[in-house]
């Protein structure tokens, strides 16, 4: 009896795991199928042209790809040091009594709906950015634009990265730090050992934040200015892939237009998968280095979604 229980349990859980694969494959298939018109008409040019004109039916995704990657990378640059700082402080340096409340508060940030972030962006962040623009002499000083989007994304990403990084650091075996102290390490050096031990997991935490920044829609739409242009300027209004889909999908009555919007979804899907693969590669390569330098087998990182 017991054996058959084991078997059915394995089959059951295996089916759920297979479901994940099916869903991913299904999404890829459906996105491709429903963007056939656009794929057939524009081909690879869709990735590289800048025009987005629903009136004449001419579509290219480059400004949206640019805006998505640029805003996510900027957000990552701002968020990563802050998030890691929070994680290190909570797990290594914070007085015991502050630890739980701080961890709870950072996680609370993750629970705020993105529309609330968006409203906060419009009413608080955008006026501040506008003041900075006026002080810097930008004309016209709009406030909405890449800067506001990157800042709001950074705030949204911080709790994800810092929570995961904190868990990683918490799971570094105490023996690691004890060994460092035994060798005469200072506190900072002991922390460095702990970070080195958990680095694959920490990279995973950062990439998790990046994935979140790539796909964020509502808050970004509300502050980025929604103008499809390619510019390195921090103050220019720009556009992201998720935002254009959210903005235009409901009113897209024309078939080609609809297919072009769904193809943007497909590109976002491909880019997200690509970013995840890259982060996997990064984790594998650092893991190998860690193992070959014979510190200790890495267990923690396996539990972290990339």
């Amino acid at each position: 009896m017991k054996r058959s229980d084991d078997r059915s349990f394995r089959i059951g859980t295996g089916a759920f795991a297979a479901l994940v694969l099916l869903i991913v494959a299904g999404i890829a298939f459906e996105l491709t199928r429903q963007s056939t018109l656009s794929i057939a008409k524009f081909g690879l040019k869709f990735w590289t042209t800048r025009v987005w004109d629903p009136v004449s039916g001419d579509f290219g995704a480059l400004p949206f790809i640019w805006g998505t990657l640029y805003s996510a990378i900027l957000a990552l640059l701002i968020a990563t040091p802050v998030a890691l700082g929070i994680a290190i402080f909570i797990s290594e340096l914070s007085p015991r009594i502050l630890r739980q409340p701080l961890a709870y508060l950072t996680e609370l940030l993750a629970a705020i709906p993105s529309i609330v972030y968006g409203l906060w962006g419009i009413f608080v962040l955008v006026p501040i950015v506008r003041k900075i623009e006026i002080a810097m002499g930008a004309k016209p000083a709009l406030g909405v634009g890449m800067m506001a989007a990157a800042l709001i994304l950074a705030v949204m990403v911080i709790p994800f990265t810092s929570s995961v990084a904190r868990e990683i650091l918490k799971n570094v075996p105490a023996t690691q730090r004890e060994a460092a102290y035994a060798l005469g390490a200072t506190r900072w050096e002991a922390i460095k050992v702990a970070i080195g031990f958990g680095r694959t997991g920490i990279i995973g935490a950062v990439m998790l934040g990046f994935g979140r920044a790539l796909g964020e829609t509502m808050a970004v739409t509300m502050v980025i200015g929604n103008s499809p242009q390619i510019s390195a300027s921090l103050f220019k209004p720009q556009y992201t892939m998720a935002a254009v889909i959210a903005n235009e999908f409901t009113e897209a009555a024309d078939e080609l237009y609809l297919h072009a919007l769904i193809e943007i979804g497909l590109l976002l899907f491909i880019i997200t998968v690509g970013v995840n693969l890259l982060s996997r590669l990064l984790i594998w390569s650092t893991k190998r280095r860690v193992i070959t330098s014979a510190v200790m087998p890495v267990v923690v990182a396996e539990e972290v979604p990339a």
Partner: protein
Amino acid sequence: MKLKSLLILVSIALAACQPSETKTSSSAPANNGPITINGAGATFPNPIYSKWFDEYQKSHPDIRINYQSIGSGGGIKQLSAQTVFFGASDGPMTDAQLQSAPGAILHFPTVLGGVVPVYNVTGVTQPLRFNGAVLADIYLGKITKWNDPAIAALNPGVKLPADDIAVVHRSDGSGTTYIFCDFLSKVSQDYKQKIGVSTSVNWPAGVGAKGNEGVSGLVRQTPGAIGYVELIYALQNKMPYGSVQNKAGQFITASLDSVTAAAAGAAMPDDFRVSITNADGANAYPIASFTWLLLYQHPKDVARGKAMVDFLKWALTDGQKFAPSLGYAPLPQPVIAKEMQALGKVQ
């Protein structure tokens, strides 16, 4: 196709936060029991449609009409896929859309809306005057300063600052954008060629904000900004807005009366698919439009078809009195008379 309509269904369900029952609309038998009719479409008329359906159910307890405001595009798509019994749109269906539908679709104007320019110009307190050419050039990015001679010529005596104009438009696909572009394309060849008319267009200038609230919020915050919002939205939020010169040369400040006057001035074709921007008439406000309810001429379900015709007859007569209090301009009498006749074709 099945998956696609499923996707749309899911999106409606999400939008309305309640399960949709649209699938039953064309198949369920309707004997003496209560009749449920489902529709979907434009967001602009949603407040008055909700009010109408609510009021109508009070006097006709056996008829229940559900409406999902998913956008005009979605309404047309679902009507064509026959997942809803009626649709609603802020722009008339195109010939291509009508041809690809499985049956003849009729348009019925229900109420009217207008679009007004809103702005935030430092030091200017009196209402500004605009005309189509100036608005077109501002949105084309050709006029970039508030003290441009073209604006100054329309506003003698107003001290305009030398500030840059920050152009704000809708980022989401919208009937408001459609009406605004429709007017500007009629008065400016350049606008027609470079931008054109659609619910979303390729704007050469400015920033996009989501919804009327997004546009008005950004305009209020940004010195030098100009935007366009629905008349209803401006009235409800007591926002000041500019007047616009009509075809007869008068500067008209939008009001429910001046929007109704625009509808009265237009020559009405038999299928009611007519643009009333830049309409004739001394008091006509130039940026106005009907919003349409869409019905199949030969509905599959006869009982529902009859119920819907009865409802429309009520909406066009008794129902019109609810329009002004909700900020919609009521239809002019001749249009109503013509529609009552056309409703006879639905069978």
